[in-house]
């Protein structure tokens, strides 16, 4: 069978599996729809959380991102996992004990105010919708790349599949399909990684391979990589920084608290039977996530070394001259996988010095040694542009793995995109049906009506998300980072204050959320334009890009969170403390005793 047929068969089989699960796990009640009946085993919930969490970006782009950033890429690895420690200790068990369906419902009840609940809904929708735009474009990209259909057709197929299990199954359908999707994506990610690690180091476990010797040479793989890329004018892999140490620090904080504050992740912990399970389940979630997140840096470094070795034969030797004429491979003799990916535009060759060979190096380097070598060799600029996604997508072909592995990677990428999209859609539709309709517009709805409202809200959300995926606003590339900034600066502090400060009143919490959200949006808009409209950025008025101690806009959520806390405490002192029954409620939330199945009653 040829590659295309195998890919269709494998992807088709996984879709049939998801739809089969959806048929089995239909939602019969609002409890099924919002929290999967509150009866999910903590280990299974951990798997579902893993799939919920790891998006198309984690699966396809992260390794490439780390490959480019080197050491600094660690900020994504630490940031996107360290947040689970915060979630397990600061939020998940307490919100589970509170025992309601949604995050805004906690904010509304704890701060005894519909306004607080509305502000929380606003923050939730802002974070989740910006996040889902990235996922839907990811679904389109994954489909078009793997299945050879157009981007639009890809988004439509993706919408259709999610529709089946999200509308009929709600959280219940989503949970069990996410478990299956986790299995597909983790196998798809680790199998090529094992082979590439074996190839380069003789060590099958990628996490150990990254710290092993390169091809029995006596030199470690990382030292070899450092040597090759600094010789070609790139930054040193093991120490390269993203801007500054301070920026890396603050960026990591933003990602961690953003992770802990993302509603679609938090609600996953409402589906387990007990408070104790919520704590353990966060641990299991991190186990399943860490399997991919500790493999990714190995894939990153190995794929980067592989890519250089492919286009420059001197890389494979111990002390070969990277600048010798015959080291750069002849374009017409390039391997087949390069030809295949050139068609997609992810790889591009321009023969700047007209010698018919591929020279791949950093032509923006300021290193005088490198510049001298480049001139002596007659190189006229970097000739290969490489999209970072290639590091994962082309991996199986670079490692010469059989076609079924390539098909598996396709199914894995799609599983990652669909599972995250479904989790976000649930967070959005339950905010609409439960927090807006049931709590504010139509409090007299029966359970049956609410279930129907939830399903309709889900269907509408899918259509809107699909539309946004097809017509992504100009800022699509930065959306996921912005979602973290919003969650970090608005939702996380409000939830933490609600649990850890018994005397926090509604005025303080609302002012804090608005201030955190406001200052973060202000900083982001300053760089990217007011509401992302081109030409309205005003960062020059503030003194050039990253004016605040060199902190980049994507890293600013942590500063927003600090502002949120500070404003909340300042405003709190100007108003009356919360009523006694709210303080009693906080005491009840803090202890596990008396927990009951999650429900939506008031």
């Amino acid at each position: 069978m040829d590659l295309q047929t195998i890919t269709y068969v494998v992807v088709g089989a996984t879709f049939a599996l998801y739809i089969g699960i959806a048929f089995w796990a239909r939602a019969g009640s609002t409890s099924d729809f919002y929290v999967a009946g509150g009866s999910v085993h903590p280990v299974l919930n951990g798997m579902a959380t893993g799939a919920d969490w790891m998006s198309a970006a984690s699966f396809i782009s992260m390794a490439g991102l780390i490959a480019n950033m080197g050491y600094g890429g660690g900020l994504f690895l630490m940031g996107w996992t360290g947040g689970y420690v915060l979630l397990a200790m600061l939020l998940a068990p307490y919100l589970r004990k509170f025992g309601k369906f949604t995050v805004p419902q906690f904010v509304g009840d704890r701060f005894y105010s519909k306004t607080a609940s509305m502000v929380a809904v606003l923050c939730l929708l802002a974070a989740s919708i910006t996040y889902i735009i990235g996922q839907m474009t990811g679904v389109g990209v994954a489909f078009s790349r793997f299945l050879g259909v157009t981007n639009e057709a890809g988004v439509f197929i993706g919408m259709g599949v999610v529709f089946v299990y999200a509308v009929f199954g709600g959280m219940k359908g989503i949970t069990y399909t996410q478990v299956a999707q986790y299995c597909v994506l983790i196998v798809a990610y680790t199998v090529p990684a094992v082979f590439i690690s074996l190839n380069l180091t003789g060590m099958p476990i990628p996490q150990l391979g990254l710290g092993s010797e390169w091809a029995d040479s006596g030199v470690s793989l990382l030292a070899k990589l450092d040597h090759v890329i600094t010789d070609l004018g790139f930054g040193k892999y093991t120490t390269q920084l993203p801007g500054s140490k301070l920026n890396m620090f603050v960026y990591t904080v933003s990602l961690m608290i953003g992770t802990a504050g993302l509603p679609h992740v938090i609600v996953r912990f409402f589906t387990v039977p007990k408070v104790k399970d919520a704590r353990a389940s966060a641990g299991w979630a991190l186990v399943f996530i860490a399997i991919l997140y500790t493999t990714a840096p190995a894939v990153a470094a190995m794929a980067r070394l592989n890519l250089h070795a492919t286009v420059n034969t001197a890389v494979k030797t111990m002390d070969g001259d990277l600048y010798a004429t015959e080291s750069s491979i002849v374009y017409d003799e390039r391997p087949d996988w390069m030809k295949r990916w050139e068609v997609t535009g992810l790889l591009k060759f321009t023969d700047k010095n007209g010698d018919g060979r591929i020279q791949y190096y950093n032509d923006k380097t300021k290193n005088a040694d490198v510049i001298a070598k480049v001139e002596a060799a007659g190189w006229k600029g970097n000739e290969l542009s490489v999209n970072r996604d290639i590091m994962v997508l082309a991996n199986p072909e670079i490692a010469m793995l059989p076609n079924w592995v390539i098909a598996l990677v396709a199914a894995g990428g799609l599983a990652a995109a669909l599972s995250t999209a479904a989790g976000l859609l649930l967070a959005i539709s339950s905010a609409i049906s439960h927090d807006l309709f049931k709590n504010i517009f139509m409090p007299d709805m029966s359970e049956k009506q609410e279930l129907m409202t939830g399903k309709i809200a889900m269907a509408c959300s899918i259509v809107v998300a699909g539309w946004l995926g097809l017509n992504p606003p100009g800022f699509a590339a930065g959306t996921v980072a912005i979602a973290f900034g919003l969650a970090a600066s608005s939702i996380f502090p409000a939830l933490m204050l609600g649990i850890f400060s018994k005397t926090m009143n509604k005025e303080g919490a609302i002012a804090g959320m608005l201030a955190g959200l406001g200052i973060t949006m202000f900083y982001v808009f300053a760089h990217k334009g007011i509401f992302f409209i081109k030409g309205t950025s005003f960062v020059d008025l503030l003194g050039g890009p990253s004016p605040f101690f060199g902190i980049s806009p994507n890293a600013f959520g942590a500063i927003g969170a600090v502002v949120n806390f500070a404003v909340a405490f300042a405003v709190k002192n100007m108003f009356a403390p919360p009523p006694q029954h709210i303080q009693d409620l906080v005491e009840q939330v803090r202890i596990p005793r008396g927990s009951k199945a999650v429900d939506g009653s008031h």
Partner: protein
Amino acid sequence: MNEVHEAGEGYWAAVLKLLFTVLAIWFLVSYGAGIIFADALNGIHLGGYPLGFWFAQQGSLYTFVFLIFWYAKKMAALDIKYDVHED
């Protein structure tokens, strides 16, 4: 009600103490070893890994996993000690 309240206060103090211990370790491995002291630690090698780099891309993650399970176990013990556990 008052009994619950008092048990709750002792429990909460113990919970906060555990919380600060876990957060201290959490901070030391990621922000400490992985970022602030990474350069100094890079002088030490763990196999082929410079140690600071290892903490930023591997070690922190393993520690996080361990921390959550350790925290969950300690909390379960506290729940029983202060008699606030679920049935």
